[in-house]
């Protein structure tokens, strides 16, 4: 008996008597072949009290350096945005936290309406008319979009910009085996998708042309030009897919207005915590024509027998429990709780707030770019516009060592591109800006980088310690 299992000894006796067996073991032995029925316990430690487990989990947490412990400029797919306190409260409510998928709409109007509101917000954000209720996360959402394209046009070729997140590229490669597709990666030129190579890679058997906005190096792509070129070559049947950071849609032209058919992306930036990579959610929006081939759950508005407005899961004939092997996807989990955080966050930002926030990021990113490239030995990796993240080159510098060095001062300067692109950008550094990174912190980062670079070159001393040594 544990603190969670309810049956007392007396309960067990009464239940066994009602069932008509002498013991639970007998009940199991009736059903499980003797050779398979274990008597020895699992090789796991004994259970522990709540307070002991808490102490253990706190020890594990303390062995990590989180964004609470250092001033972090890490991004590259997930970002240290401020999550407003009301999200914790709402997500902690039993009524949102503990229900299953809303199969019984009469007692699930809360969750269903949240989905409907979420779909509306995503549709607004992307300027695309239809959105599902979310998918797992960013890179696999791109994979799901490629599958949608395949169902739509039956073509074989997946063309994707090298500006996509490396995890997206890897995920596509893995899934393409199942789809029977071939993945063609289009190189970048000065940090953005090379338009000529892009047009050249696309042919009439190209099912989808995929790009990321802003791309992995922080560059703002000219999406309108790229999508027009893709349709020029691949025709109307080709499906253009854009993987977006939704926060940037406060300032960037929305996908629906620049020729994107299916917009997807990592939703973490919308009110979700970092959580070492998950759970978060992927958003998935598309033009009307794709509605009945979308993966995942979709909520729809309807009325009840008394004429009251209500919401239901709809278009379920796309789904596995009905269509089985003919389903449009195997995805049956929406990330409902994470998507709730997303729609609450968008409501919190509001109509005026999202553009204000996106502009704030762009201004601070611009400042960081100016400030950091003023350091001797630090150059721009590319010259494209940036709005929330920038890529640097530090020629001749061991960037991972530099990162480790700066971390000793309570700052994380960003992702050493040697981790993801050891061949292409061995000396690259990807620096992300959120509204939690102030001008003072950017200035202090510049000091630390300058000192670190100087130290590696053997021409100077280590970084100075200042008053901003600790996360603030």
């Amino acid at each position: 008996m544990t603190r969670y299992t309810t049956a007392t000894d007396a309960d067990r006796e009464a239940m066994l008597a009602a069932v008509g067996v002498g013991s639970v073991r007998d009940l199991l032995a009736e059903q499980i072949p003797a050779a398979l029925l274990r008597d020895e316990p699992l090789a796991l430690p004994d259970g522990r009290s709540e307070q002991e487990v808490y102490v253990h989990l706190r020890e594990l947490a303390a062995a990590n350096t989180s964004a609470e412990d250092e001033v972090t400029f890490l991004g590259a797919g997930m970002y240290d945005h401020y999550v407003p306190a009301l999200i914790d409260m709402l997500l902690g409510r039993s009524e949102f936290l503990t229900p299953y998928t809303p199969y019984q709409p009469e007692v699930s109007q809360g969750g269903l309406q949240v989905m409907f509101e979420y779909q509306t917000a995503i549709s607004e954000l992307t300027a695309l008319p239809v959105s599902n209720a979310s998918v797992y996360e960013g890179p696999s959402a791109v994979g799901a979009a490629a599958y949608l394209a395949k169902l739509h046009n039956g073509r074989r070729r997946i063309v994707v910009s090298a500006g996509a997140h490396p995890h997206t590229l890897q995920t596509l490669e893995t899934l393409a085996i199942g789809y029977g597709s071939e993945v063609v990666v289009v190189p970048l030129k000065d940090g953005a998708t090379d338009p000529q190579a892009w047009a050249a890679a696309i042919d009439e058997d190209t099912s989808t042309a995929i790009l990321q906005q802003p791309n992995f190096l922080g560059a703002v792509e000219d999406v309108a030009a790229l999508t027009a070129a893709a349709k020029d070559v691949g025709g109307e049947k080709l499906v253009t897919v854009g993987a977006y950071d939704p926060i940037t849609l406060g300032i960037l032209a929305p996908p629906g207005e620049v020729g994107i058919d299916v917009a997807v992306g990592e939703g973490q930036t919308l009110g979700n915590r970092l959580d070492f990579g998950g759970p978060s959610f992927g958003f998935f929006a598309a033009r009307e024509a794709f509605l009945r081939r979308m993966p995942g759950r979709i909520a729809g508005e309807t009325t009840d027998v008394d004429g009251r407005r209500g919401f239901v899961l709809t278009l379920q004939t796309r789904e596995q429990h009905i269509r089985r092997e003919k389903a449009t996807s195997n995805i049956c989990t929406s990330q409902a709780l994470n998507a709730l955080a997303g729609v609450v966050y968008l409501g919190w930002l509001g109509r005026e707030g999202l553009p204000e926030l996106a502009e704030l990021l762009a201004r601070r990113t611009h400042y960081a770019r100016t400030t950091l490239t003023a350091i001797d030995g630090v150059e721009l990796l590319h010259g494209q516009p940036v709005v929330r993240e920038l890529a640097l080159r530090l020629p001749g510098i061991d960037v991972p060592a530099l990162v480790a060095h700066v971390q000793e001062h309570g700052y994380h300067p960003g992702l050493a591109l040697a981790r993801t692109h050891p061949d292409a950008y061995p000396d690259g550094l990807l620096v992300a800006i959120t509204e939690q990174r102030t001008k003072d912190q950017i200035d202090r980062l510049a000091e630390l980088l300058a000192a670190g670079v100087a130290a590696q070159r053997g021409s100077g001393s280590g970084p100075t310690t200042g008053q901003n040594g600790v996360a603030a």
Partner: protein
Amino acid sequence: DHATTIFEKGAAGRRSFVAPDAGVPEADLDEILPARLRRSAPARLPQVTEGELVRHYVRLSRRNFDLDTGFYPLGSCTMKHNPRLHERVTALPGHARLHPFQDPAHAQGALELMWGLERQLAEVSGLPHVCLQPSAGSHGELAGVLLARAYHEARGETRTKVLTPDTAHGTNPATVTMAGLEVVKVATNPDGGVDLDDLRAKADDDTALLMLTNPNTLGIFDPNIEEISSIVHGVGGVLYYDGANLNAIMGITRPGDMGFDIVHFNLHKSFTQPHGGGGPGSGPIAVSDRISPYLPLPVIRREEAPAGDGPTGPSGARFSLVEDAAALPEGAPGSQSIGKLRGFQGNYGCFVRSYTYITSLGAAGLRDASEVAVLNANYLLAKLEELGVREYLPLAFGTRCMHEFVLSGGPLKRDLGIRTLDLAKRLLDHGFHPPTVYFPLLVDEALLIEPVETEAKETLDAFALAIAEIVREAQDDPSLAQNAPYSTPVRRLDEAGAAKRPRIRQPLD
């Protein structure tokens, strides 16, 4: 009107968010980003204060049924209590604000936790290697089928068929299609297990794998599992275990011992994640040695007694992430990886919860949970029998069950004129969430009932009485159930109309 959306509330100019000053020197926005790349009109998001936002969503939440307000015997979903400790530890900033690209040297606690969970799941499944990455059960299935495919292809074999019993979860065949393979259905025998003759007839050297849940979606543990295993292995196929029903067998028996090569776990079922209204989930997989080279990346490596004075986890061991298959010894897990199924390492927040759960319960606690889950299911079955409802709602197969069971509402419909759907809706008026209905497909008017170990005997009794009462009342007046529910925020909804003319977003001016 309670169904007013957030877009219909508030007023122009209201806000919850206040932006801090940029605090940087002024710059011309056109210089930062050319106007043609910029958005011309803002997304028409809500305009509300924090108070309006809170009130809106708190009110909405109260239009949900949830596990903390009542019994939720949704078969195949394992709606067990969500311990609140899990939410507390997951929210610790060291977990919640850890960036996924943090250098492993600064994420030793997270990696130690993940490694620990891998070992826990390996022990529960009886299979040596675990990958935590998949985002949900069906994502785990996809990983598994791609692994089986990779395994065969590495041996130079192109096998295209996947055997799936007709009791299988719908995601099984859907996954097979996405993995580019072909579904071959296997029949169910009169006892509710796999029809061995049909299996023998269909298993051949084109068989890539068999996907099986055991106990299956009828709640029946297939007594022929060893024979099934030997048939599939005999033709060179791989055995895949759909772990959705693992809550029946934790510590009692193990998929690895049954002969399975690949298992997926639904952490959100057996290992108690809050279901969140339909996610997040987490679908780790465990595999045998022969499948392990193909596992997704990254792989967590552990040095028990690390050299130097670099960082370690609290245990003193040092952990690293290997992202590059080429960096792994030949034959090692991940050395011929199928690649990646998603970004980063998986749903770490879910790992924290399930690790906490398994650590809290220990070996004895896990087994006890499964034993009581099985006992509760059989007791509820017996109680329904005792109350005389089995005449209208017979057990679809067999006489006893594992952790869940399937009733057929066929006689109820035939004799009393109320369908399983009506029964389900009427249960809402009694304050219970209905069981899973119309699944599995092979049972007429199916009701799949899973009364998990965290539910009290009193609750099972009350639920059984409610069913008996609904049956009794239908004998007098079937229209009561036919028009139920009455006490819910809305009543029966026009689902057909919703699908015919989809309104899936709020129109805005």
